[in-house]
């Protein structure tokens, strides 16, 4: 494969219809997958890496991925956040094997090359040889060898990284609507970690990127709400796409009853319980935290990040490609440092709705695999995405639309050389 070839050489021809059609081949073609690593993940995007709270202290490090490329994020001795490829400049071995920890410097276990926390080479074992024999050439210059740096930036407690030196700041890149909502959910109060786990889903990463933007399927596939006569989450709601960057989106819903109650009581915060058939209704005990009436939201940030805030359950989802047909979906549950015990308890119980065993979301663990399996041998066939039209306009009154999926593909097409 020639990595610099145009889309015609590697990428499948896009059918008529623009973003309202998606060639199935994109989900199962190894050459496409390889080109995405270069053009998309290592291209002009900000990739979510980890939480700021995971690298809070000098010496803290956390490993992460940009596409398949291994990354380390570290807080250096001066308190600066650093990002670099997790690869020794000598033979290419992983430098950090642990997922997280605290170090004064990094050391590659293979030949004991050591690095400062910013990735600069600190020492080469036996550089001067042993007993005057062997060793590196006289002119070996440690300053010319280092772990490859990447740019990192923190926004709303999230650490992002990019290979692209000229990227606009994250806040500018996501746009004002997306930035405002990230601040609402993650940027207004100090965050605290409540728990994490991950789920291996057997599908191409883009099928999950579609799935998390797919408001059309939510009440059709995920029947928990209707089965248990829990209030539906599709009351007042809509889809917002980022200004000029429709590959990021917000899907939100408001429980109208809560709004009414708020008008009557004028209360800042009040409790509400669902009318449900649950034997354990405690599960859905909830408290209103914001004055905008939004009680459920999913926000996607291109390419592999989503944040959901369902009732009182706040969670960062990061879907990491682990191969052409395998994706690791990491669920990281959060609260705020100043949460009351009662609020923490609600967040903990409501975490049951999502995750690998989520009463609402568990279907997503298999549905994308069903598409992966269903599209094998599909030749030049393509998906049809016409719900809510064929364009890229925000849908402020209805979530019966696939506009945010079309938005994802508009970003994808631009990066991969179609547009």
């Amino acid at each position: 494969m020639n990595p610099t070839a145009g889309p015609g050489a590697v990428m499948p021809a896009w059918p008529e219809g623009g973003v309202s059609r998606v060639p199935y081949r994109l989900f199962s073609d190894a050459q496409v997958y390889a080109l995405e690593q270069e053009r998309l993940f290592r291209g002009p995007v900000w990739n979510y890496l980890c939480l700021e709270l995971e690298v809070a202290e000098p010496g803290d490090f956390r490993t992460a991925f940009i596409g398949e490329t291994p990354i380390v994020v570290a807080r250096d001795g001066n308190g600066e956040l650093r990002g670099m490829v997790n690869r020794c400049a000598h033979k290419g071995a992983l430098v950090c094997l642990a997922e997280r920890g605290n170090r004064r410097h990094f050391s590659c276990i293979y030949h004991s090359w050591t690095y400062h926390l910013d990735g600069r080479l600190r020492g080469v074992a036996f550089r001067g040889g042993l007993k005057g024999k062997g060793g590196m050439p006289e002119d070996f210059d440690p300053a010319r060898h280092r772990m490859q740096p990447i740019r990192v930036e923190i926004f709303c407690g999230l650490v992002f990284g990019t290979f692209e030196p000229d990227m606009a700041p994250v806040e500018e890149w996501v746009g004002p609507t997306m930035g405002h909502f990230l601040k609402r959910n993650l940027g207004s109060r100090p965050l605290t970690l409540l728990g994490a786990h991950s789920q291996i889903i057997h599908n191409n990463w883009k099928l999950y990127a579609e799935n998390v933007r797919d408001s059309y399927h939510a009440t059709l596939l995920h029947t928990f709400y209707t089965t248990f006569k829990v209030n539906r989450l599709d009351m007042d709601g809509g889809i917002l796409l980022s200004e000029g960057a429709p590959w990021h989106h917000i899907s939100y819903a408001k429980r109208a009853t809560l709004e009414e109650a708020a008008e009557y009581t004028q209360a800042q915060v009040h409790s509400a319980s669902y009318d449900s058939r649950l034997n354990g209704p405690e599960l859905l005990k909830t408290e209103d935290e914001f004055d905008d009436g939004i009680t459920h939201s999913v926000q996607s940030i291109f390419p592999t990040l989503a944040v959901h805030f369902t009732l009182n359950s706040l969670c960062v989802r990061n879907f990491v490609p682990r191969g052409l047909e395998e994706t690791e979906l990491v669920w990281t549950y959060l609260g705020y440092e100043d949460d009351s015990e009662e609020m923490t308890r609600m967040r903990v119980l409501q975490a049951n709705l999502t995750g690998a065993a989520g009463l609402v979301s568990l279907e997503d663990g298999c549905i994308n695999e069903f598409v992966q399996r269903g599209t094998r041998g599909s030749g030049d066939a393509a998906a049809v995405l016409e719900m809510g039209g064929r364009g890229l306009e925000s849908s402020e009154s209805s979530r019966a639309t696939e506009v945010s999926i079309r938005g994802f593909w508009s970003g994808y097409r631009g990066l991969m050389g179609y547009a």
Partner: protein
Amino acid sequence: MIDAETRQRVEDFLLDCAWAIDEDDLEAWPGFFAEDGRYRITTRDNEARGLPVGIMLCEGRGMMEDRILALRTANIYEPHRYRHVLGRPRLREAEGGLIRSDSSFIVIRTMQDGRMDLFAAGNYCDLLRVGNGRVTIQERAAVLESRRVDVLIVIPI
């Protein structure tokens, strides 16, 4: 001191609970717990860090019944079964006359097309009440060794 008879009862009880799951007698599963019993699935990593959100949490039998009803009527997934293999439990006396039991488990999952995988391995960290001729679970944490779940968990471990 846990006497031999108590140990025998506890071991039989733990086996019965695993068999109820493996034999798809899931409606019987909440009955192994006290009315206000607690069941959760979490990971070794979350436990080590003292983090409260795991993978599944049921407080009281009602939530367990909801889980079973949901998997029978609401949740959508590819049909599969478990086979539990339990290790012999380590038993200790705990506060309030309860018995703390730790037992290793492995769960092998078989899909409808015959594919088999080692789905889970971990420790049942149990607080059991033994008396009046019966054993009940007051608290069970199924602590998974791995933080990764393959596809999804819908049947309790």
